[in-house]
């Protein structure tokens, strides 16, 4: 009990003092996960919408693959990306291994299926009410995709948040691909894992508090924004 109490007090001190290491790690975590979320959204939104609307024979295999990809263990993705980016790997020439770019790459692979799968479900539900009307207008799949993505834009904010939450809380892939190098690729989750193993619980706890607060704040802001925008349109 005293260990928890002492750690919590020390963590509070670090937070209040605005520790520079803490700040640097937090900034890198946000930058890597936010960038990965944006890149994954650019891929996942149209991919999910296409899978929702296509009549191609590839639809069913795609749905199965997307759903299966939701359960991929991050360490396996980390390992695969490590092999791709390692010097002898097919993407070794990029020089992304043990850099934030490599971590963004790994997180993008991890969360693109989440965005695509949730987008597919959201778009499919919205399409039910509009399908006959779209058909009567003679609309192409591409036009339907564009229209439906705009129609469900508020729900997609929640999709983005789910993906961001998954990315920033992830530890396995970024540990393998980033290498947890101090001042370069050390992010909140990898630091928590490292400091806990070293027995430096105050820093780990401070980062844990920050991580949870960050996720809560982002979600709360998005919820308020979504509710306000929906209230204006519905």
């Amino acid at each position, binding site marked *: 009990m005293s260990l928890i109490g002492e750690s919590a007090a020390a963590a509070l001190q670090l937070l209040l003092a605005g520790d520079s290491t803490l700040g640097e790690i937090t900034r890198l975590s946000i930058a890597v996960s936010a960038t990965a979320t944006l890149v994954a959204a650019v891929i996942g939104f149209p991919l999910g919408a296409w899978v929702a609307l296509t009549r191609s024979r590839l639809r069913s295999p795609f749905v199965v693959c997307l759903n299966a990809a939701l359960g991929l263990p991050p360490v396996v993705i980390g390992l695969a990306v490590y092999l791709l980016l390692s010097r002898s790997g097919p993407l070794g020439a990029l020089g992304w291994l043990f850099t934030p770019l490599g971590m963004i790459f790994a997180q993008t692979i991890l969360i693109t299926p989440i965005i695509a799968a949730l987008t597919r479900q959201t778009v499919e539900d919205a399409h039910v*009410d509009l399908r006959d*009307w779209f058909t009567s207008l*003679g609309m192409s799949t591409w036009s339907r995709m564009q229209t439906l993505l705009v129609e469900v834009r508020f729900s997609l904010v929640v999709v983005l948040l789910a993906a961001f939450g998954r990315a920033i809380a992830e530890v396995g892939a970024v540990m393998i691909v980033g290498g947890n190098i101090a001042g370069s690729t050390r992010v909140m989750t990898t630091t928590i894992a490292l400091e806990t193993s070293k027995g430096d619980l105050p820093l780990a706890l401070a980062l844990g508090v920050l991580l949870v607060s960050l996720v809560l704040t982002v979600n709360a802001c998005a919820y308020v924004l979504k509710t306000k925008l929906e209230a204006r349109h519905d």
Partner: protein
Amino acid sequence: MTELIAPIVSLRRVSFRVSGKTLLEDVSLDVQAGERVVILGANGAGKSTLLKLCAGILEPSAGEISSAPLREQAFIFQRPAILRRSVLDNVRYVLRNRSISEPECSARARLALEVTELTSFAQQPAKTLSGGEQQRLALARAWACQPRLLLADEPTASLSPAAAREVERIIQAVHATGATLIFTTHNLAQAKRLAQRIVFLDGGRIVEDRPASEFFSAPQSGAARHYLEGETL
């Protein structure tokens, strides 16, 4: 010598089956340009299916259909499909979809809102409109497209009498532009007001196809008589 004009909608021995169930059987129908046709029948008779086949929303299981091209049609649903954007943008959306230039889109959209008396709602989110106003918006979109063929599936089914009369007025305004009307309704008074011709369906087959005045004064089939007497829903 009289010149033969091709019908705007023509169905030849059309059947429609889904999941082993036959919804329409051996239906043949010609509708000439400018006609006002009302499809009547009990629930499940196949009215909506017939209308959707005419619009190309459904593909027939058997038979042939020729109809006006999609860009010359407009379809009004019982529950209007409304986009999550402003009333004006809802109208502009269908016009843009038809590759109409931006200035003309705006001009036509504003005119359509005037005709449907929705101008004061132009910038309002369309989803906040009442049921009757949403149906008028659907008709505004149709009017703006200047269709040759207007198909409407029970467009006033869930509206108050006042809202229904307003929708009827707009339907007549669209017809006045030269459009052919085909619509379904359960409202017999409305059918009497709007129809020139009645197509009566029973069990997925056309059992009567006659001028409206004849149909209402002397229905020939037992099914139509029962329907008019309110014995079938």
